[in-house]
Each structure stands twice: as C-alpha cells, then as structure tokens.
C-alpha cells in the first residue's frame, strides 16, 4: 500500500500543482510595456522622448520600478510620469476596467559625439516580487556625431580697393555638448585691421550654447599703403577645449590716383606783367599702381605761357612724389589783379589739376618815369628861382 499510496499522492499533488504552474506561466504577460516607436532614427545630440504605456493584466495591483538596460556609454535617460520624476509606479489591476494602464515618459539623450550605426537598449519594469518585463528599443544614428566647433564662411574671397572695407559673413556653431566661450582672433598682414561684429556690436569673444550658432560679421580694413595683391587672413575661434580656423582671402585691386600741388601747398603767386616766374609743382601718385607717362599741360589766360622743365614724367611709383618746375610767363598786356591759371597732369588712367591764382603786378618802370618827370619840373622851378629870384 505504501508505494501505491505514495504514487497516487504524488499524482494528486501533481494535479494540484498544475494550475499553480499555469498561473506562474501566465504571469509572463501580466505587465505589458508598449510604445509605438520601437525603432527610431535620430541625429547626434538629439533627445528622444518615448511615450510608453504600462498595462497591468494581472488581478493584483502591481508596484513597478523601471530601468534602462544596455544603454550605450555616454547616453543617459530620465523617466517620469505625469510630469513627476518617479522611482516606482503602481498600476491598478485588471479588475478596474480601462484604469489598468499608466503612461510613462522616457527621455533618452543621444550624445553629440557618436559613431553612426544601430544602437539597442531595453526598458525593464521590475515588480515587487522580482519579475522583470522587458521592452526592447532600437535607435539608428544616421550620421556621425562630433564634439567640435563649426566655423563656416559663405564667401571667403572678396575683392576691393585699398580703402574698401571687406565684410565676411561667418557662422560659428557650437556642436559640443556644453556651452562654449569662444575667443575670436585674427591673423592678418601687418597694418590690417580685423574686427568682429556680432548682433550690431564689435566683440572679441562670443558665448554659444550647446548646439546653437551665431552669425559673426568679420570686418577687414586693409593697411593704408597696401599694394595690389591677394592677401590671406586667418580667423580663429578658440574656447580652450575646442578651436576652429577659417581662411579668408582679400584681393586688393590696384587703384590709380594722382595729385598735383606745390611743395608748400600754396597755389597763389605774384608775377609782374610781361615777366616770368618759376613755379614748383609737386606731383604725387596717390594710387597703388605705378603710373607711367604722366603728361603736364596748362590752361592759361591768352598770351601767357607755361614752360615745363619736362613735359612728361616717365614713371612714378605708387606713393612716390616728384617735383617739376614750370616757368610761367605773363602777357605784357596783362592788367593788374588776379588771373587764373590751371595746370593739369594726366595719364590715361588718372588725372589731377591745380588752379593757381596769379596776382599780376604792373611794372614799376613807368612809376619811376613819372617821378623823374615831376623831379625835372621841380628842378626847372628851382632854376627859375635861382636865375630870377634876384637874391
């Protein structure tokens, strides 16, 4: 009996246990974690917000804690529900119809510096009695994420004259995870002036939040005596941890300029009618290109003449000046007072003119003749007095 009884008892026990085992197995679906977005494609630095529904299919109220497993290094997450940061979440049982679910917000931050590829992680809900329920999620990073600064310029080559101001529109983007404080500096040829303008003011540094960008206007003023050429300017934004350089190019176009004056700057002279006078002229090349064959000419009142020491200057370097003397001869018919005399220098490229105001003085000779006549008359009277005065 004992063996048979033992076997039947065991059988009975088995029968008793089967429903329990079924119950335990059925517990695998008691909690369901659900989100529609199980596979997402995002860019580096983006935050992903999952809206996860937690459904309780058991007949018991379930108190759950959540975590995220297998999250790649550098990623972080935050779980909240109904605007509250939660440690645990209790969900009503199946008996409460339509009230047996809760919504859960999972925020996952993808780092900026990341290789592109597919990343997987799992959300795990753990009941009080240690059962785990899983929700696997996949994220695809479509491009490579970087920890660096982006400094770009739309048009890095500009052309202008020596007195132009070059203005380059650049964009500085902070693609690091932190706020960055950038110092701005420029490496330009000697004498050049480079300044940075941000939001209407001149600045030497800018602060940019992570992922943000600012437009910086780089103003470049060439040196005063710059020659026609191509010039490179390097502009750098440096925050200490990250730095970026861009190269700008300024092309200075040659400019023709000519100036005519006298060494003293005085443009008035005195001359005696019929006589000549020497004028010193100072001719300056105010442009940035060598001028050749500078011709000199004069517009005079009629019957005046202007003879130049040389009619032509073969070559004048940029910024250089030379002196030419001119002999002005006034007409002997010129009346006393002011006359205008224009002297002009010109090359095919540039021209300069100076108007001289020449004050004509009449000759003193006739004045002396007049005085002599009066003296002669006085002498005659003295002669009469001597002869007929009967002293």
């Amino acid at each position: 009996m004992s063996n048979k009884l033992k076997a039947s008892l065991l059988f009975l026990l088995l029968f008793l246990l089967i429903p329990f085992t079924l119950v335990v197995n059925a517990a695998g679906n008691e909690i369901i974690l659900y989100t529609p977005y199980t596979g997402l494609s995002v860019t580096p630095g983006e935050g992903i917000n999952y809206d996860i529904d937690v459904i309780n299919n058991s007949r018991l109220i379930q108190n759950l804690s959540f975590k995220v497993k297998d999250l790649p290094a550098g990623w972080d997450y935050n779980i909240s529900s109904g605007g509250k940061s939660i440690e645990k979440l209790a969900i009503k049982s199946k008996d409460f119809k339509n009230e047996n679910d809760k919504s859960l917000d999972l925020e996952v931050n993808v780092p900026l510096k990341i290789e592109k590829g597919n990343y997987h992680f799992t959300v795990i809900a753990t009941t009080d009695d240690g059962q785990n329920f899983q929700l696997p999620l996949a994220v695809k990073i479509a491009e490579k994420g970087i920890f660096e600064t982006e400094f770009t310029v739309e048009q890095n080559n500009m052309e202008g004259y020596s007195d132009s101001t070059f203005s380059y529109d650049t964009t500085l983007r902070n693609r690091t995870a932190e706020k960055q404080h950038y110092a701005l500096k420029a490496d330009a040829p000697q004498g050049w002036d480079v300044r940075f303008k941000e939001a209407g003011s001149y600045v030497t540094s800018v602060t940019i939040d992570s992922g943000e960008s600012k437009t910086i206007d780089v103003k470049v003023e060439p040196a005063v005596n710059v020659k026609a050429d191509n010039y490179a300017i390097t502009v750098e934004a440096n925050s200490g941890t990250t730095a970026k350089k861009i190269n700008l190019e300024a092309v200075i176009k040659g400019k023709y300029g000519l100036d005519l004056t006298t060494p003293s700057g005085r443009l008035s002279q005195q001359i005696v009618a019929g006589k000549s006078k020497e004028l010193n002229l100072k001719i300056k090349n105010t442009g940035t290109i060598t001028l050749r064959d500078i011709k000199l000419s004069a517009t005079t009142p009629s019957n005046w003449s202007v003879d130049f020491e040389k009619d032509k200057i073969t070559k004048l370097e940029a910024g250089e000046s030379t002196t030419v003397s001119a002999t002005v001869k006034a007409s002997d018919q010129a009346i006393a007072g002011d006359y205008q005399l224009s002297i002009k220098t010109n090359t095919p490229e540039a021209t300069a003119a100076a108007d001289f105001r020449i004050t004509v003085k009449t000759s003193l000779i006739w004045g002396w003749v007049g005085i002599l006549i009066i003296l002669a008359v006085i002498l005659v009277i003295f002669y009469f007095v001597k002869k007929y005065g009967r002293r």
Partner: protein
Amino acid sequence: MPGFSNSFLVMVDKEISDHVKSWKFIIVVALILLTTFGSLYSILNIIRENAALINKGDNFLFLKLFTATDGNLPNFMTLISFLGPILGIALGFDLVNSERNRGTISRILAQPIPRDYFITSKFTAAVIVILLLVFSVGFLVMGMGLLSIGLPPTLGEFLRICIFLFLSTIYIAFWLSLGILFSIIFEQAATSALASLAIWLFFTVFYSMIVNIVAQSLSKNPFQINHLTVILSRLSPNYLYDELTTILLTPSIRTLGGLSFQQLQGAIPSALSLDQSLLLVWPHFTALIAASLICFAVAYLLFMRREVRA
C-alpha cells in the same frame, strides 16, 4: 641873410588871414560844406537802407562814402571835381592884379625881401588854405560816416582817402596856379576871373563834345573811336582827376578805359591792392602834379620878368 625866411613866413601868414577873411572864400566854403552835407546825408541813407547787403571789409564800405550816389545829389568825389576848380580860381584870379591896381605891390617890393617872395608867398598861402579846407571836409565826411555806420575804415581805405584828399589839393592847386597866371597876365581882375572861368567851363562842358566830334570824324571803327576819345579826353585836367579818383576810390576797377578779350580771359574779379591802384593811375598822378607845377612855373617866370614899377 638872417630874417629872410622869417619874413617869408610873415607874408604867408598875412596872405592866409586875408584869404580866410575874404567874402569870396567864405561863400565858396559855405557852398562846399552845404553840398557835402547834402551828399553825405543821401549816402548814409543808401547805406542804412541796404545794411543787409553790406559785408564788412569786403566791399570797401568806407570808400562808398565818397563814391556812392543816389542819383539826386552828386557824391563827394564829383563835388570836389566840380567845385574844386571854382575854389582854386576864386583864390587866385585877383592875387597879383588887385595889388598892382591898388599900388601896394611896389610898397611890398620896397621892403628888403627877394622879389619872388611876393609870388611864392601868395601861392604857398593859397595852397595851405586849400589843403586845410580839403582835409577838413574829407575828415568831416569820414567822422560823420564813422559816427553813423559805426564801422572803422581799414588801413588801406584810410590811406586811399588820404591820397585822394592830397590829389584833390593838387588838382585845386592847378586851377589856383591858372588863376594866378591870369592875374599876372590881365590888368583887370574881372578879365582874369572870366578868362579862368572860361577855361574851366571849356574843360567841364565843351571839351568832351569837341573830343567826341573829333574822334568820330577821325575814325569809323567804334572801338577806335572809343580809344581816341579816351586819349584826347586825358588832355583835360578834369577828366584826369575824375579817372584818377574813381580808380583810387574803387579798388575793384582794374584797368583804365577799354579791355581787350585777351586781357579779360582768365581774369578773376578781385580788388587791387593800394600800390597796384596807385601804379595804375601813376601817369595821371604825374600829369596832374606836373601840370600844377608847370602852371606855377610859367606864372612865376612871367611875374619875375614883368616890370612892376609903373
């Protein structure tokens, strides 16, 4: 010979007092003063009415006191050129013949003085009177102008006015010499006065007409006629004096008579400096001084060679 120059001064002194006390002098001075005030009054009115247009130092405002006119009353410059000769003639026409007629000449010449003292002292005294009168009237005009417009003249303006007054004296002295010359030539004072006035009238009124007729008969070219007229006119002391004073008191005039286009081209309107203005009229200046001196020299020579003991 001590005392000689002293006796000359005594004679000049006496002559001046004779002139100043004489009726003819008082009448001419009154005439000059009256017309001067009249012209000054009208000029000051013009200046006051056009005060907004006046830019100090730019347009020689002070000289305008002597040259501006409103058309009714002649300006000071014209006035002197017209009344000056009358003053000169009035002072000179009877200086010698009246003394001769009264017989005082032989009494004076009986004194121990050189014979030419008689004529030179008369001339000197009259010139001093004219000088004083012209400068007094001129400075009177300047003073009244200063009071009225409140702007001082510049140094250049002041010098121009002084030279103008000096030239006016010489111009009047020419007519004085002419008067003295006729008072030596003619025995009757009335004849001498008429002869002087005839010459004055001839130059003031008829001479320009004659010049016009002569110039037009000599040439048909208008430019040449103009040129001839100017040259012939300059033989008249009146014309010389007018041209001289006009240029002296109007610095913006740069030339005498006509201008050719060659001379005008490139010229900038500007005022002449005093020395340039003077140089421009220097021939006139010379001619006027020389004419006065020659006129005096002739009178002197005639007087010295004339037999006074009748």
